[in-house]
């Protein structure tokens, strides 16, 4: 009952936020609507009993990624409004496709409605990778079945950090041509 209300409320908010991102002329507005969409998505995660992920979503996406976006928008403080008109053909085609996909999906709704399996809060020794609300299963899964992926993800983050620092450097690497700009 409560979950249903939450679901409809926040999925509406999320879709509204998403469309506003696409439609807004001002990038700062777009970033704000994006935050709205991301936080609403976190609430949808909550309705799915994925509490850890919801917190992570807010922390990483809404808290860090969007701050980065806002930081860059402010740093490149230029007139970021769109100047050229969007491609009408592409827009029409996209809208038609979107409408078709949504229509197809909507015909499915309610048919053979899936019942949610009930979940515990801590993983059982028998099935340690079952879906649970507690965060212990996360650690368990990450350090057993997903040991390699998490190492790769860590390495990826390191590479991303090095890459971002290199790309963000103001000075040119080749110093033989003398200084240009600052």
């Amino acid at each position, binding site marked *: 009952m409560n979950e249903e209300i939450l679901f409809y409320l926040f999925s509406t908010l999320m879709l509204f936020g998403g469309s506003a991102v696409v439609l807004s002329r001002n990038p700062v507005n777009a970033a704000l609507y994006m935050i709205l969409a991301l936080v609403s998505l976190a609430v949808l995660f909550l309705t799915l009993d994925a509490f850890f992920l919801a917190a992570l979503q807010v*922390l990483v996406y809404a808290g860090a990624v969007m701050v980065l976006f806002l930081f860059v928008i402010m740093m490149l403080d230029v007139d970021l409004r769109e100047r050229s008109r969007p491609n009408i053909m592409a827009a029409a085609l996209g809208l038609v496709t979107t409408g078709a996909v949504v229509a197809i999906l909507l015909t499915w709704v309610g048919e053979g409605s899936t019942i949610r399996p009930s979940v515990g809060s801590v993983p059982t020794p028998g099935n340690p990778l079952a879906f649970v609300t*507690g*965060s212990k299963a996360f650690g368990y899964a990450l350090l057993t079945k997903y040991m390699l992926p998490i190492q790769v993800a860590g390495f990826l983050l390191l590479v991303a950090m090095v890459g971002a620092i290199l790309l963000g450097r103001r000075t040119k690497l080749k110093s033989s041509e003398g200084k240009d700009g600052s």
Partner: protein
Amino acid sequence: MDVAWEMFLLKVFYGILALVAILTFAAYAVLAERKVSAWIQGRVGPNRTTLPIVGDIPILGPFLRSLGLFQPMADGLKFLFKEEMCPGQVNRFHYHLAPILALIPALSVLAVVPFGQYVASTGADPIPLVLADLDIGILLIFALSSLGVYGIVLAGWASNSKYPFLGGVRASAQMISFELAMGLSVLPVFLWVNEPGSIGGLNLARVVDWQDNGWGMIFVQPVSALVFLVALFAESNRLPFDMPESETDLVGGFHTEYGAFKFGLFFTAEYAHVIVGSAIFALLFLGGWHFLPGVEDPWPIGWSGAALSFLWFALKTFAMSFLFIWVRWTLPRFRYDQVMKLGWGKLLPLALGNLLLYAVLASWMG
């Protein structure tokens, strides 16, 4: 259904109670800030405001007046009744949105902060007093408090004026820089608390339970406590790191263009951050509501014990808030590049090394 409805109403009631409490604490934190700064500088501080009836009680009234205890009410009324100014150059919608966005995360963090324990007479395990006893407590706190920066960034941007803008940009950069160190400094604590075989999780109350002998986590992990404290100062934009509003180089920083009630909201948010931050530090490192080191908790069974444990915890929180204020009136402000260098160059490696050390220690001790 009826029981569920009652539970819901009870939760709403507790939530409102907590909000009222935190807003009062924030108002009195402002008073504490003014009084402590005055005493440190050899001044007297606010001692003029008085109430008609309470202030007229022979000895008590003047004493309360000299402590400035009525000042927060006057300040609040002033913020309420001042004219709402809106400068002409601002981006109106965002300008009005920003203070609200700044206050909401600061207050909503409160939901997962435990503030005491209730021991039932049946001899069951003590129940932590908390609005939402979540498994992901500390993560949610980090998540929500990281949203607080949007208020500042938005205020800086919407003011459409150069100093607030610089303040906003600084706030966003500082937030990203110190959040990492903060998260890493808390990890060893949870590593230590969640020994194998335990339920596991990021619950704050469990950290407090672990410290039930009264010895705070700060004795076990002093480096974590230090890094967390420094990051806390940076995240709540308090003085050695108050880059977003460093009044000597940025006028008023992000709230230069704000006045009246909107400024009041920013102000309240800052002090709510300070109090919640102190509470979290007290929970994680100072043993929460547990009594002195080596002394068994003297709290009696039942609600009186719960109240006492809350008072003891509040005392610790206020002591931490006093530290915040004390540091503010002692240390000079860092330069902006120094803040960044400290965040990325010193705190982050320190927190990483600390995490590694405790990970090795934990695995070595089994």
